[in-house]
């Protein structure tokens, strides 16, 4: 079990009803972590539409969740 912090932005935050939460996960990778949270909060967006970041840097869906890290799921951006 790894305890980490998850950050939500834009439509993910609206769906989760919060900007961040502390999560205990036994997922093997970040893809599995997102799948579990998607089920919990009913996120509309599949992982293929997102990017994932760990501790403020873009990461890979195959990376293993690290205890104490800050994971952010990045919905398609719309700045500019």
């Amino acid at each position, binding site marked *: 079990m790894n305890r980490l912090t998850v950050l939500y932005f834009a439509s993910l935050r609206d769906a989760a009803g919060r900007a961040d939460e502390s999560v205990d996960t036994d997922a093997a990778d970040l893809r599995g972590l997102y799948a579990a949270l998607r089920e919990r909060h009913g996120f509309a*967006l599949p992982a293929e539409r997102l990017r994932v970041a760990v501790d*403020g840097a873009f990461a890979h869906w195959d990376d293993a969740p690290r205890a104490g890290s800050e994971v952010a799921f990045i919905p398609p*951006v*719309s700045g500019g």
Partner: protein
Amino acid sequence: MRFRLSETPFDPAATREWLMRDEAGAYASFEGWVRDHHQGRAVLGLRYESYALLAEREGEKILAEALERFAIVEARCVHRVGDLGVGELAVWVGVSAAHRDAAFAACRYIIDETKARVPIWKHERYAEGDAGWLHPEPPPTQG
């Protein structure tokens, strides 16, 4: 810092001065303004939110790439976050260079990459009373 987020309105006449150099003969700039419509719907205003830590890092990276790829002198970008009304300045890009080819190309590169890669999200309020986040399909090259 060549890329900045700004929580308050800023003046492009002031940011433009960051680019001035005696060896620069060309200055290209781009501004995004809040439009009164989007895909046929009347827009009252919008809110930009960002993942500031990653947005600033990714923005810096884009500007470093532009300085590496193009024969330019200096380049900067400022992106608003928070609530904006119609007509307000949302994003500004400025590039100075010896010649205009490089200034235009780099300016275009910076705004394109910023829109594609920097974690900033637009929340539009419509005249009909509803509102929503924009999560566009990324262009094919972004995978």
